């Protein structure tokens, strides 16, 4: 789980009861802090299973949850990079739509059809790098830049399909949208969408925790001026994180296109950025940057998917689903504040 670099308060070896209780409390606190939102996820799963009389924990339903979580997990992974630097990317939903449109349009060109997947990814990457360049080189606020591209890229997405829905029932690589990877023939399989999401999480973890770039991302988010003075190329880090966010949004677009065999520039990916941001916050990543982990984001994305799925399972109306989801988000973050109170931060 999140390797927070274990909060190192060594229990004093003393025999008095008070000190032992204090040590226990500290251990408890460390445990809670390391687990993050995982207990909330488990409680939600168990609760929905009880309320739905056992229909939640079935192989089929879990497959649906994982599949529903996949695209948001990918977007939220990119968003984690951005928020770790203290920024925000509001444009991921629009970039997702534009990438899907670009991919689907190319997939209908006879000779080049197979290239639709890289085309979608590159479209996303391109928009992301433009965001990053505006933020890093022109020093514009991330909120403003990505709010602008949220609107502008949405317009481009509509333009790409001449404001219609583009279909391609024979799109290459359709299996990634609807196929499953068989783990044990006839017994266990996992949707390709979920496999991709998991790979994205693993790659993100590798970059954030095992590379120089990862430390630089945390450093920029933790203290941008200090990072600059420490010789870190802050501009390059910023372009990278917005580029990655765009690339993952492009991947999300490809996943959606392969799943639906279609894309609509107006509707696809509407307000996806909000779900992605929610997943990151639920995962305990600090909004001011510098603190957080990709595993937390995975848990956050799963919480959102479980909530949607569970509320439908137990027959809560669409309208109340919104209310409950909103309250759970606020409650979860309140819980997070409480659990962070004990950690050392000066």
């Amino acid at each position, binding site marked *: 789980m999140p390797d927070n*670099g*274990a*909060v*190192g*308060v*060594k229990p004093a070896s003393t025999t008095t009861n008070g000190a032992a209780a204090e040590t226990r409390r500290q251990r408890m606190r460390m445990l809670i802090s390391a687990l993050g939102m995982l207990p909330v996820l488990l409680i939600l799963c168990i609760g929905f299973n009880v309320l739905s009389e056992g229909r939640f924990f079935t192989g089929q339903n879990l497959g649906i949850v994982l599949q529903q979580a996949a695209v948001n997990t990918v977007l939220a992974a990119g968003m984690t990079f951005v928020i770790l630097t203290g920024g925000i990317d509001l444009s991921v939903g629009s970039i997702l739509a534009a990438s899907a449109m670009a991919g689907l349009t190319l997939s209908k060109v006879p000779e080049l059809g197979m290239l639709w997947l890289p085309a979608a990814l590159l479209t996303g990457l391109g928009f992301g790098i433009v965001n990053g360049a505006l933020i890093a080189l022109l020093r514009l606020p991330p909120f403003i830049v990505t709010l602008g591209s949220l609107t502008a890229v949405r317009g481009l997405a509509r333009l790409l399909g001449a404001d219609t829905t583009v279909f391609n029932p024979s799109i290459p690589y359709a299996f990634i949208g609807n196929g499953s990877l068989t783990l044990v023939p006839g017994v266990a399989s996992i949707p390709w969408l979920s496999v991709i999401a998991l790979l994205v999480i693993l790659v993100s973890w590798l970059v954030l925790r*095992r*590379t*120089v*770039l*990862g*430390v*630089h991302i*945390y*450093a920029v988010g*933790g*203290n941008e*001026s*200090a*990072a*600059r*003075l*420490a*010789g*870190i*190329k802050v501009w390059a880090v910023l372009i990278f994180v917005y580029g990655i966010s765009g690339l993952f949004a492009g991947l999300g677009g490809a996943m959606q296109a392969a799943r639906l065999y279609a894309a609509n520039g107006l509707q696809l990916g509407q307000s996806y950025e909000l779900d992605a941001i929610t997943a990151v916050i639920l995962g305990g990543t600090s909004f001011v940057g*510098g*603190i957080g982990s990709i595993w937390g984001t995975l848990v956050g994305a799963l919480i959102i998917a479980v909530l949607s799925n569970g509320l439908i399972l137990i027959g809560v109306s669409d309208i109340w689903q919104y209310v409950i989801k909103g309250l759970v988000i606020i409650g979860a973050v309140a819980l997070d504040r409480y659990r962070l109170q004990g950690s*050392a*931060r*000066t």
Partner: protein
Amino acid sequence: MNDPILEMRGVSKTFFGIKALRAVDLTVYPGEIHALMGENGAGKSTLMKILSGAYRPDPGGEIRIEGRPVRIEGPLGGRAAGISIIYQELSLAPNLSVAENIYLGREISRSGLLSRGAMREGVGPILKRLGADFLPSTLVAHLSMGQRQLVEIARALHARSKILIMDEPTTSLSAAESERLFALIRQLRAEGLAIIYISHRMDEVYALGDRVTVLRDGRLVGSLDKPEIRADTIVRLMVGRDVSSFYKKDHDPKAGRGHPVLAAIDMADGGRVKGCSLTVHAGEVVGLAGLIGAGRTELAHLIIGASSKTSGRLELEGRPVEIRTPGEALEAGIAYLTEDRKALGLFLDMSCLDNINLAVLGRDAKLGWFLDRDKARERADRAFAGLSIRAANVGVPAGGLSGGNQQKVLLSRLLAIAPKVLILDEPTRGVDVGAKSEIYSIIDNLAKAGTAILVISSDLPEIIGICDRVIVMRAGHIAGEVSRGPNSPLAQEDIMGLATGMEHLDA
């Protein structure tokens, strides 16, 4: 002398079993400037926060104002008791006007509507009395630091405070602004206000203080009257031991005066640095002294490429180098320790391990990208042992460490690149006495090993104690250099003379 305005008797404060203040007796008279000195952590700010009502003292002590016992409670308690504090970081709202700031929390309203006109008229006389050159309706954002200080003072006067506490008020002021502030403080003294003046700077204490009280480790260790105020006495009281053993300078400047390592020639930034040249040799510790605002930090920033220069060039070991960013400076072997550890140096949420390794991650990385965690761990362990950094382990966030240990973590980051030139900007600011002497001995050892070291410091005894020679800056220029004689130490008077432009201190 007349009756005291403030008497504190046996005031203590305990935090979680740690005594921050031990039975302090402090008496302040109206019409006096009472300088309060002490190392960081000596208890000055605790004392201040008790007077402002932010902390409640331990039971047992007593505070009297004009002879009456008072209980100061809550953030407004101090002001209600007639005490105003002007903090180092001013507490003005820059988006509001001068009048609005002065009335903040006590706005005049008529039937629920803010009465800006009445507020502007209300502050007029006070601003006039203080000789302010701005209007009540001016936005605070448009004022200079000196003018903002004036607004703070106006706010205190407007609240009819009788005791004014100023915490290092000249930190962000230019020399001219400081002079104006001193004149104003003397005027307020003449009007009968009691002023508690907290400062680390001897020259200010000489110039202003009627009495000096020194705190150490939460205890009041001495009060000196005007004729007794002398630097060595104060330093001895503050440090609690003989100064000569406190500073460590074993390296031999003569033997060490090797080849020139860093030469900065005619550096200027078009603003606060105006054509400065200096040279630092291998194995030499050079002090860079001067008043706040003289441009010392700015010059350091120019050297390491943190700000862009309008003229000047650098030579490293005799060869010209072009340095445009701090990253290039590190690559060339020039390391800079910032004066603002928390804002510009450390990553408080990151582990000590990451903080220490940050500058060499790229060099150590496997395949150019992947962290070499064993190497990083080893380096951090070595730094912890070598600089005796005290923390539970290398994995704890740097923000949880004490000031001295934080400084050593930051220093370890710089030492990791094995710098040829080390520029230390206020290396012992906010560091306790024990860690201070450890840092001095680290500097001494580095000089012995042949590093060229430039120390920027506003702490004159420190500069005199550890440096081989001192370059003095004044108003963006190099004002001159003070060298150690064959048998004589660096003279504080010479340095202050150059820093202030030969004005005499009324010691």
